[in-house]
């Protein structure tokens, strides 16, 4: 059986974040984790081609990368497409998921990837494909590759796939029916007794959470008080509030009073998810202070608030970000802010 494997710049051996802009490249045979992956197929499968692409390039040129990859997969006459594992790498996960779904839809061969549940690529794609739960620990690479191989073999053989817990994939949020031994009446009594006794029980269904955000009304810009917020992790040199670069639980408020232009020397970046060099050179590339001052001077906006808010959005679970967002909103309301521009990497 023939496999095509997709890796990002790091796992593909090109290097770190500085290579995240690399366009899609092709290698013959397996690279890095692909070599381990082959072992777990017990000699039945071979990686014919490895596709390597920089994380930024993949996200910024998703459609083109997909088209190129599909072509390579066709040429390789692949029976299986594997991407990652991506762990918590968000851009990698988004690209891997999008590629797998395109392969399934356009080439009708099995596709599999792996990433952590909090990876944004997971929520975007889990409904459409099997994503192995890799967790966030890259040290478990071998274990994750083994599970990917096991699940991929089932997919290739057309075997039925068991529950997420058993097979090790992220729940797809889909429902199917199954006949079971116990009647619904028996299951009800079983379940309520466990609940009453405080024992763990498995509910057969759970409600889902994404509440829609009501649209705030439009504003009059010329009189508006505007504030800048970023989740790109821009903090004053020394990171006084010790905002974590990943899964940040804190956010900071930083003065830009009388400042016309952010200077790289005054700031650093606490965010592991992107190459910081460009923002270090000129932080206005992330927090557009200079332009906002112009607009303020010209009267386009009423007033730019004298502080900006910053945190890191990297690998940040909803439980953190929902809370921080709410807290920031409270702060903004207290200050009488009319509008916020949130800049995100």
């Amino acid at each position, binding site marked *: 059986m023939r496999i095509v494997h997709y890796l990002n710049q790091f796992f593909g051996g090109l290097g770190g974040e500085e290579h995240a802009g690399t366009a899609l490249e092709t290698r013959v045979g397996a690279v890095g984790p692909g070599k381990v992956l082959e072992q777990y197929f017990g000699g039945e499968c071979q990686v014919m081609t490895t596709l390597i692409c920089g994380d930024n390039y993949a996200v910024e040129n998703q459609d083109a990368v997909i088209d190129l990859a599909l072509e390579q997969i066709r040429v390789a006459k692949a029976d299986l497409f594997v991407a990652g594992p991506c762990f918590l790498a968000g851009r990698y996960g988004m690209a891997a998921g999008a590629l797998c779904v395109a392969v399934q839809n356009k080439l009708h061969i099995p596709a599999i990837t792996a990433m952590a549940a909090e990876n944004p690529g997971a929520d975007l794609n889990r409904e459409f494909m099997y994503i192995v739960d890799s967790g966030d620990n890259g040290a478990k690479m071998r274990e994750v590759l083994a599970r990917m191989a096991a699940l991929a073999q089932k997919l290739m053989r057309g075997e039925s796939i068991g*529950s997420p817990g058993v097979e090790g994939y992220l729940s797809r949020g889909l*429902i199917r029916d199954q006949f079971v031994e116990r009647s*619904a009446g028996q299951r009800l009594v079983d379940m309520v007794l466990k609940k009453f006794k405080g024992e763990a029980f498995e509910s057969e269904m759970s409600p889902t959470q994404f509440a829609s955000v009501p649209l705030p009304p439009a504003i009059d810009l010329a009189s508006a008080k505007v504030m800048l917020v970023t989740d790109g992790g821009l903090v004053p040199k020394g990171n006084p509030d010790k905002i974590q670069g990943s899964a940040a639980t804190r956010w900071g408020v930083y003065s830009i009073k009388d400042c016309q232009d952010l200077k790289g020397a005054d700031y650093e970046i606490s965010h592991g998810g992107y190459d910081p060099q460009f923002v270090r050179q000129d932080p206005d590339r992330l927090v557009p202070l200079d332009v906002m001052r112009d607009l303020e001077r010209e009267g386009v906006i009423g007033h730019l608030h004298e502080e900006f808010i910053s945190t890191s959005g990297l690998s940040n679970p909803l439980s953190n970000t929902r809370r921080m967002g709410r807290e920031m909103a409270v702060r903004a309301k207290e200050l009488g802010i009319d509008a916020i521009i949130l800049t995100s990497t």
Partner: protein
Amino acid sequence: MQLTLAYHPVNSIGFGERLSLAGTALTVSQEELRAIVLEEALIEAVDFVIAAPNDSLRAGPVFDIVEPRAKAPGASPDWPGILGPPQTAGSGMTHVLTGAAVTMLREDSSGDSRGATGYILEMSGAPAAGSHYSTLQHLIVVPHTRSNIPAAARQRAYRLAQLKIAVRLAQAAFAIAPARTEVFDNSDAETRAGLPRLAYIGQIFSRQRKPEADEHILYGADTDGMLPTLLHPNEWLDGALVPSYHASIGGAESYFYQNHPVILELYRRHQAGEINFIGAVATIASANNFDRERNTRFAANLAKWALRADAAVLTKFGGGVPHTDLSETARLLETMGVKTAVQVTDAARDHKVESALLFNFPEVDAIVCIGGNDTHWKLPQVERVIAANSGLAELLAGPIEIESHNVIGVANQQGASRLRSVVY
């Protein structure tokens, strides 16, 4: 209140000169049964068909399925409020022909949400495997009523005829020693001080529709204006309840009131000394928000304050709106410190978890989901199709695509379903 069920297993049904039970062989007299059915003036003619497990047979649309049972002389009455005065059901001895069923057909498809075929009885093949009814010996009753009569009157005739037959058949067992007996009695609450007090709250009707004229549901009353009420488990089991005529009820038959899966399971745990099965509440799903607030509070208050339940199990009757009453009642109970588990059908036509439930209360987190949107079959032609007219017979002959929602015994909201939703 003590109910004793005397079980007489039946393994075959045959036609003969007179009604008799010999061993496990039940013989019925078509002449006698015809006379009983024709007591209903609106029924002009009737046919009887016997179906056994594994027969290549399909029958429908089914009006109701009833287990043959007869109250011993001196016990509470048979089907009180329907066949006689509404005296309390649930005490004394009831003779039960286990393994048998009286299955009444409709003469037209019910339309509404069960479509052209209504509920189908399937005696063999994959759908049969999911339904308890395929394991029973059926006496199928095919009615022919006068034309141009109101639907309510026609269905009332079906109901009365069917219940009378079901009683008559079980009377064959009166003089015969039962294979075994079982006593249903939960009056020993004081001896169960340390055990969890469990209650059942079951919807018996949904005001998504008004009841038909003279429709029986609870002791012969149609539940119009009804408020939730205490109803002893024995009453549920012994003839106080029949399902509504309306087909869009998501699966409810008299058979599974008589053999109520939730009540029987609670009694089993009670008899095993695990719980104190403290009682049951019968409730209805409401037509509007105002009623819902009132009814759900009544139901919750009865369970909490009259029954002093520690935990409760809830089922619904009907479609989506009852979902809301169900979950709201459960939510109220949880706020009162009563743990709940609820049974729902899968609302997700798109197979997505985010569409499955019509409520989102964190405290209502113990959910049995009997699925149904993912299960369908292509039914082959069968040797015998039993229907009241040739049009229906042709429709049901097969091959025919059918959803699990339409197979009687697979779709069931009384707790009989062995289907469950699996999230993947």
